[in-house]
């Protein structure tokens, strides 16, 4: 009447087959993806090394300097075209003021590139953690994307600085219009 059978229940054969399938998938994950993940983890760790962001910062400074140099050539041309004595107070003052603006632009662009690099390092750490938690990873913006947003800001700052240049403004009619011709406009 009562069952009373003392034998252990038998496991379904399909359960072992499923476990074997999972084991094979995991081994394959280990062979193919774990080395790639480890590469990413090591790259992320190295982003916290001292001096890791040096290249990014130097590159941002150089590219920002180039944005300003183009404007300086035009400013000097405009000063000569107006017959301004380069030794005059106006010419020297204008030139020095714009050089200081260039220094500010370069310094802030470099600093921003360094901060962006640190942000990216933390973002990558977050992605590594998400990998470990099996969560969906978010898209990672690369060096080029970060650099571009930094340069867009530098370009906008240069446009404002040169828009205030009296020599350029008097030659072109409007400083802003001339600055736009240098390719300093946004959209980069």
């Amino acid at each position, binding site marked *: 009447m009562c069952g009373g059978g003392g034998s252990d229940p038998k496991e379904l054969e399909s359960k072992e087959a499923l476990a074997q399938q999972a084991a094979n998938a995991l081994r394959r994950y280990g062979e193919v993806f774990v080395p790639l993940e480890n590469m990413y983890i090591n790259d992320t760790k190295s982003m916290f090394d001292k001096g890791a962001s040096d290249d990014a910062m130097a590159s941002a400074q150089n590219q920002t300097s180039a944005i300003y140099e183009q404007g300086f050539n035009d400013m000097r041309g405009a000063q000569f075209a107006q017959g301004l004595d380069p030794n005059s107070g106006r010419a020297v003052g204008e030139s020095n003021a714009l050089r*200081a603006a260039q*220094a500010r632009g*370069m*310094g802030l662009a470099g600093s921003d590139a360094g901060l962006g690099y640190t942000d990216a390092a933390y973002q990558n750490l*977050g992605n590594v953690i*998400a990998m470990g938690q099996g969560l969906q990873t978010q898209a990672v913006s690369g060096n080029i994307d970060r650099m571009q947003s930094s340069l867009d800001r530098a370009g906008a700052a240069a446009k404002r600085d040169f828009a205030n240049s009296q020599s350029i403004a008097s030659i072109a009619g409007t400083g802003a219009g001339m600055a736009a011709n240098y390719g300093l406009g946004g959209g980069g």
Partner: protein
Amino acid sequence: MGRSNAFTNYLAQLDPEVSGIVGNFYGYSPDNPYAQINPYKYNHLNATKQPGDQLYADLIRAQTQDYNQRFAPIENFMAGQITATGTKSLEGDLANTRENMNAAAANVQSQQNRNMGRMGLQNTGNVSNSLTAVGGLVGGLNDTRLRDADRRQSILSGSLSGISQKARSTGQ
């Protein structure tokens, strides 16, 4: 190479947790943390011994070990970066900002000196001491602090909050 394979095969015969301990003891870290899983390890067992369950248990142990070895230290590192006001990266970032502003001022000063020199003029302006450059330095340092505080908030409300919630729900 041959010895390494033999050792991997030896580890494969062990329980994954034990194989991890033995591997660590000998400083052996194979690229593939799942290489020691043998899908057919329990093939010989009778169905009443639950071979599928035993294999699943091996997989879970291997995943836990992999998580503990590769990901837990990163989580600890991330949590350890947080300070009362920001992150431990603040000091380095502030130094970078100062260095960037000083280097840019020195660079531009040299350019200006050369340009003036070409016209036979002596440059008397000092870029580093200009209000614009000093203002840029102060603004840059303030921005660096703000960005660091934002970063802390982002870590606390982003990566780490997700982990703590998951850890809490797993522990229940």
